[in-house]
């Protein structure tokens, strides 16, 4: 399986995700955002970071860069895309995923492990997890407060597009277990065709026990399955 990681000015998780992808035997190329062509791949990753210094709105500038035309073509052909953190913000700004990520409700940058409930394990990114399995993956963001209109939220629920929700130690999804104010405690969603996932948590940061956990591995194991 082949993967392309798009590198924007300000990306800072691009090399981390390369290490994670290669651990799971994905042949990985780094692609510069100004490129107008992209080598063929099964997976495209939009990494975390602060592309373009978060100017205007997080992910907005990156969503208009040259390479995104190729990324959209890849998406339309049914190719897989993972956007983590800033990558999720870029996906919403591009319109490949609905909604938007707003400033955290309490205005603080949050960097910590959180509990997540796997709401949907019938996607190419989550099939290695059990439904309603509780996993622990770190978040590190200032704008992770997922927002969408009521109609969009209803559609996400009806189409089983909500993949990950913030929960507590006992798998309870409520206000107390919501770190950033996200609507419906949403931490990750897929598009209708289920070939694109956007998630605020960083699975690439927990694929080695020496780094504190391995729960992120399931995302990559599901893909190569």
């Amino acid at each position, binding site marked *: 399986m082949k993967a392309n990681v798009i590198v924007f000015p300000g990306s800072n998780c691009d090399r981390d995700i390369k290490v994670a992808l290669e651990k799971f035997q994905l042949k990985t190329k780094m692609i510069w955002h100004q490129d107008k062509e992209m080598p063929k791949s099964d997976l495209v990753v939009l990494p975390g970071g602060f592309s373009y210094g978060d100017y205007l709105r997080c992910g*907005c500038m990156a969503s208009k860069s040259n390479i995104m035309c190729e990324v959209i073509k890849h998406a339309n052909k049914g190719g897989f895309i993972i956007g983590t953190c800033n990558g999720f913000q870029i996906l919403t*700004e591009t319109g490949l995923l609905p909604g*938007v990520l707003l*400033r*955290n409700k309490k205005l603080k940058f949050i960097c910590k492990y959180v509990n997540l409930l796997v709401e949907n394990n019938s996607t190419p990114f989550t099939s290695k997890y059990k439904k309603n399995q509780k996993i622990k993956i770190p978040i590190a963001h200032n704008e992770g407060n997922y*927002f969408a209109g009521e109609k969009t939220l209803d559609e996400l629920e009806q189409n089983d597009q909500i993949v990950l929700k913030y929960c507590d130690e006992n798998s309870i999804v409520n206000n107390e277990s919501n770190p950033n*104010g996200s609507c419906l405690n949403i931490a990750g969603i897929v598009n209708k065709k289920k070939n694109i996932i956007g998630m605020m948590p960083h699975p690439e940061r927990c694929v080695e026990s020496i780094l504190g956990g391995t729960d992120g591995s399931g995302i990559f194991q599901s893909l190569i399955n």
Partner: protein
Amino acid sequence: MKFEVFVTLKNGVLDPQGKAVENALGNIGLSSIKNVRQGKYFTIEVDEHNEEKAKTLVKSSCEKLLANETIENFKFNKIQ
């Protein structure tokens, strides 16, 4: 031709920065101030003599980049 553009959050969209500014205004004694909402202000020059064409360009800039219509409204005025 020069335009000013205002981008503001739609009603109902949480604005924690506006809220923090409102609290700070209260802290310095300006306590009757309420419902502060924070937005963005741009000035844009358009190299175009036809006003209608210029307005179309500015509207397009707002729709495609300056505002995210999931959460924001925009309005603009010609100022020069």
